[in-house]
């Protein structure tokens, strides 16, 4: 299985109160549980079921994800930067694994 690799695009510098656009992508097959293999057996569902972004413990966005979200799920949202801190991302897999990524945002 291909390694699950999160990628996020966040500006490293911002001014206080500024609105920034955050783009995230994680490589993941998002197996829907609808497909069947050659023998006709259903391929079990395995998706990212939750995506959350928190900044210094405060929630920015939380998305409950269903199988209808494409493979390599992509999420884009806007956030307000209150000050210097770390934006933490977490993707929760159906098997319980949580993939995380941190990005520091510096306020000049």
């Amino acid at each position, binding site marked *: 299985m291909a390694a699950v690799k999160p990628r996020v695009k966040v500006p490293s510098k911002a001014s206080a109160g500024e609105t920034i656009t955050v783009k995230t992508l994680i490589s993941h097959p998002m197996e829907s549980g609808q497909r069947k293999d050659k023998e006709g057996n259903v391929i079990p569902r395995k998706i990212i079921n939750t995506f959350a972004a928190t900044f210094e413990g405060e*929630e920015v*966005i939380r998305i409950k994800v269903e199988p209808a979200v494409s493979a390599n799920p992509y999420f*884009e949202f806007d956030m307000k930067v209150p000050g210097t801190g770390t934006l933490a991302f977490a993707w929760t897999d159906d098997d319980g694994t949580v993939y995380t990524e941190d990005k520091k945002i510096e306020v000049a």
Partner: protein
Amino acid sequence: MTGERETDMNLTRRGAIALAFGAGAATMLPLRTWAATNNAEELIAAFTGGAATKDGGVAIGAPEIAENGNTVPVDVSAEGATAILIVAAGNPNAGVAEISFGPLAARSAAATRVRLAGTQDLVAVARMADGSYARASRNVKVTIGGCGG
């Protein structure tokens, strides 16, 4: 004589090359047929708690024609919403995503990419800060469905 021979050869070659296109799409999984109705309305009712939804106040953006149903870009926005539910009315499972916005979200807006089984309506329902609900839908024509297999 020589000229005639050349002409004959050319024609033969053209005939041989003419249909070089093969079974490129042979690996394409057959489209399944499913019931026209799914659990879209149930999901919306569960999200709103049965409350009535009004039109307007929420916007959903998607291409009018999506060539590949496996990855259709969708964006939703609703001024002052605390959460937005996206459902696909024509998928075997209607649920797409439920987005809740925290205190640091600059706008109640997000974008993602979704799978669509075929031409259908995408519906966005927004839960407003005052507890009311807004609803919007958008028809997307899908050329090749995001095959469920």
